[in-house]
Each structure stands twice: as C-alpha cells, then as structure tokens.
C-alpha cells in the first residue's frame, strides 16, 4: 500500500514501503524525486522540457529546460546545450550556457566551456573551465558600504598615491 504524505492543500505525494515488499510505481513518486537517466550509449539531438530531474551520461546536443529540477552531466556525459534548471551539477564535458535558479556545482573531473548564471557556484580544484560567471544575487561587496576604499579606480596613473594604501603591508621596496 502506498502512504500519502502532506495535507489536503499539497500535491499528494506517495512513498512506497519497500520493506513490506510494496510495488514501486514510478509515476507515484513526487516529481522532485523522479529522475530520467540518459545512458552512456544514448545520443539526443533536440530539446528536452519537463518536470523531472535529469542525469546525462550519454551525448546530448540542443536545449534543456527543467527550471524546477536538477540536471547532472555525469562523468561520461558529453553535452553541447543551453541549460535552464534549478540546480546543475557538471562532472563531464559541457559546452554551452547554463542558467540556474539555484546552484551550479562543478566537480574535479569536469570540462566546461560557456557562460554560467546562477545564485551560487562551487568549483572543485582540478576542474577545467573556460567560462564567464555571473551570480544573480547582488554582489557581496568586499568592503562595508560606509568604508571608503582607496579611490584608485578612475584615477589616471600619474595621480597614483606614492605610498602603499594598505596599512601593515611591509614590502621592502616600492616603486
């Protein structure tokens, strides 16, 4: 028997009790738990839209629109696509632009070329990237608003200050 989760206002979700030998119906799983896997020996050329998470271990070329779900390019995945998703994990080869409402995670074996727009990003050392990255949130400025950073941005070179602007820095020679 399937157990109903959530109240009357929520989309009914069901969780099979595997320990009791209950049958698992894929369509009964909540959409966030559903995953489609494109296998290593599958090649797709075209567009993918939907409301399930996607794992790509094969080859994919085109456009992937899964705004509320997760896309994973597996270690063997070869993808050349524009991607819109909630969260994106890249472990394989991906060329294209990625727009994520949430986080983009790039693991050490990844090879990514393209643009990334996301709320946050994590990149493991060892990953290869040739990318332009923008975070959707307001950039967290490194300086408090009331602090006055050294005003060097718009000055011509000739007007640079002669002293280092950083207190405590002790270079032995400055030009």
């Amino acid at each position, binding site marked *: 028997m399937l157990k109903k989760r959530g109240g009357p206002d929520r989309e009914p979700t069901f969780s099979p009790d595997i320990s009791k030998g209950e049958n698992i119906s894929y369509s009964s799983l909540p959409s966030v738990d559903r995953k489609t896997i494109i296998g290593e020996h599958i090649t797709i050329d075209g567009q993918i839209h939907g409301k399930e998470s996607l794992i790509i271990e094969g080859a994919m070329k085109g456009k992937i629109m899964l705004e509320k779900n997760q896309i994973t390019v597996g270690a063997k995945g070869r993808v050349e696509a524009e991607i819109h998703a909630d969260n994106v994990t890249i472990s394989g080869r991906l060329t294209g632009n990625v727009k994520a409402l949430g986080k983009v995670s790039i693991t050490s074996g990844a090879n990514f070329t393209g643009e990334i727009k996301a709320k946050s990003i994590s*990149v493991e050392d060892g990953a290869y*990237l040739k990318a*332009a*990255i923008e975070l959707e949130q307001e950039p967290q400025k490194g300086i408090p608003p009331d602090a006055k*950073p050294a005003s060097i*941005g718009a000055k011509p070179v000739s007007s640079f200050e002669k002293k280092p602007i950083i207190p405590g820095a*002790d270079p032995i020679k400055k030009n």
Partner: protein
Amino acid sequence: MTLLTADQPLKNSIVKPEESGYKSNVLQMFLEGLHQRDGSHLLDLGLISGNNINFFLRWVNKLSVCDMFHYLDRERRRRRPAGRLEQHFDFPPLTFDGILLWNLFDYVDNQTAVKLVQRCHKSIKPGGRLIVIVQGDPIVFPVLSTFAIGENFRLYPRPQPHMSLPLQRRQNREILTLLTPFSFAKSFLFRNGIKEYLFQRDEDSPISGESKDQMK
C-alpha cells in the same frame, strides 16, 4: 614553526612557502579599483580554483576564467608551439576591466609573452588594470606554483608538481619592457622574492595590433 612572510628574511628559513603566504598589496589595490567600476568584469588567467572564483565574485559583477597554465602545459605535452595561444585566448576587444596574469610570465618564452601582452591589451578596456606577479628565488618556488587567496588578501602558493613548464626568469627591466603597451602603475618587492606589478591601459591607448612587434 617560523612562517616565511614578506616581513621576514628568507635566510636560514626552512619553512615551506605554501604554508606561509603573504599579503598581496597589488591584489587589494586592484580589486578595490574594480569594485568602484560599474559592471566590472574580471579575467582570471590562473589555474582554476573554486576558492578564488568565489572570492572574486564578491568583488566584481562578472568573472571570466581562462586557465592559461593548463593550456600551456597541455600544448607543451603535445609538442605544439604555445604561440597558437590566440586560439585559446580569444575574447572580444575591450571586454575586461581587469586581468590577472598571476605569475604566468615566469613560464612563457618571449614570443608567447609578447602575444599574451598583445591579447591582454586588446581585450582590456581603457583604464583597465593588469596584475603581474614574478616569483623570486627558485629555492622558494622549486616547482610551478599558483596562488590561493586567503583572508585579508593573503596569497598562499600552491605547488603544481604535475605541470612541466620550464621557469623563465626575467629581470625587472625585462618585465617593464615586455609590458610597454601598458602604463606602469605600481610595484612591490617582498622579502620572499616575489615581485608584484600593477599596470594600467591608458584611456587613449589604441588597440594592439597582432602584427605589431612590441618587443624583439
């Protein structure tokens, strides 16, 4: 353990440089300058580091990363001339407000270095800035090292022994000559041998031509 910093002499020190780090004056000046520019776009040509990426994204609106160390190492292993780097460094003109070259010049020959400078000059906006770091004594950096950014603009060398790029030592004068298309803005020399340079593209500076030889 005694830490090797910019404040302490190298002599008789047995500390590993990657454990010490030093405060980068130039990096602080560079980022504070970028912070004041609207829609600032930074290009990092160093080895990919998640830590550095997240650090830079706190200071600029857009960050581009293009790992030249990885590219040069790969080309060298394939016995291909690094002079083809324009195929890798292929950004449109006047794109960036700042470019971080790190210590890349320590690992490229003169011909490649000239091409790098031309590419940087072409892709940086007028008023944009460039950071160059030259590592010092080979005893301190026995293998190719990149830098991880820590708190308070401290740079921690990260040895990359798997990379096989030969060290090309250059004197101060050679660096300044190489970067002639840019205006020299500031430099610092630290006790650990590291030299940091800040250059700027003049507001009225014409775009570098690929065919123009700026240094022979």
